């Protein structure tokens, strides 16, 4: 049956006689992780990955896959295998074992109370 698709019809009959051995590893190139800087002054944010043969083309291709609608001011690409990360079994590294409120502003909510108590004591003397 001839295709209903005129642009596909233009590829016939070659279309039906294509020999394609299975794709080998890396046929689709290596991957890059894509980061978008949304506005000046903001951090780059990881938005996904793509296949590209080198960083220049990775950027050219990332532009349309990751920034064709959203406005942004810059893109970064990093080869996936250049990313270093902590292991997921190490997630507890980030959980403090003791109260660390002394190094946070919220750790100092009772200062005023202390002062009020003192003033109260002075008054009642």
């Amino acid at each position: 049956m001839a295709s209903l698709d005129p642009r596909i019809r233009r590829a016939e009959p070659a279309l039906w006689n294509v020999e394609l051995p299975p794709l080998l590893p890396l046929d689709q190139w290596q991957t890059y992780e894509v980061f978008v800087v949304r506005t000046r002054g903001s951090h780059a944010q990881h938005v996904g990955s793509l296949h590209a043969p080198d960083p220049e083309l990775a950027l050219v291709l990332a532009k349309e896959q990751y920034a064709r609608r959203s406005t942004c001011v810059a893109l970064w690409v990093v080869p996936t295998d250049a990313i270093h990360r902590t292991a997921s079994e190490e997630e507890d590294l980030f959980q403090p074992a003791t109260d660390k409120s002394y190094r946070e502003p919220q750790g100092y909510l009772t200062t005023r109370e202390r002062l009020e108590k003192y003033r109260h004591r002075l008054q009642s003397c």
Partner: protein
Amino acid sequence: MLETLEILLLSLADDDLILGHRHAEWIGLGPILEEDIAFASIGQDEIGHAQAYYQLLTDLGLPTPDEYAFKRPAERFRCAHLVELPNTDYDYAQALMRHFLYDAAEQVRLQALRQSRYEPLAGLAERLLREEKYHWLHARTWVEKLGHSTEEAYLRLKSAYHLLWPYAWLLFEELPQEAAMVEAGWLPPNAELRSRWLELITPILAGIGFEVGPPASEVLLPLQGARHGLRSPHFEALLAEMTEVSASEPEAEW
């Protein structure tokens, strides 16, 4: 003068319209998904640019963009034959080389039109250049990368280049009434635009080992006349396809 302006704007618009359609044939058939997406954007942009050029005429009381694009008889089109050529065998080297030669021409053309004394056109050129920056980056990156890669890629690009070169040269064929346009300060002569275009592409093409020079006149002669309304043999079928739906119920809105 309106007629002269129409000639100029139609030649710009029709180039974009038809090439946009040719690019669009690649959606879903590109060499890798990521490139499929990128090239689809470029095709979309070109069709959007065509619409914007037609709109300048509409603003003067002439037909609407849809009427220009989908209701005009073939002989009233003014596009270059370069954009009409079919995607033979879906050879991506041809698609990229045409995109490269064309978008280099657009760079030169639009840079010049920014200074146009026809102000609506100057303003539009300024805006279109924003998207054209990406077209040019995309085209140049691909051609340079592939030009310096494998023997096969080099040979494919080279034969695409040989096929397309005379057609690309004729992107800058003199327009009917060009003298009046130049006189009015709408654009520089096409001969001058062509030399700026050569300046832009020669280092890149020479860098990958392609010779750049004027095609022989016996090659050019039979290919001339596009801007005067002479269509290539490929045009009719494409126009029939483009208008198949709209012509099936001419008064309908879609």
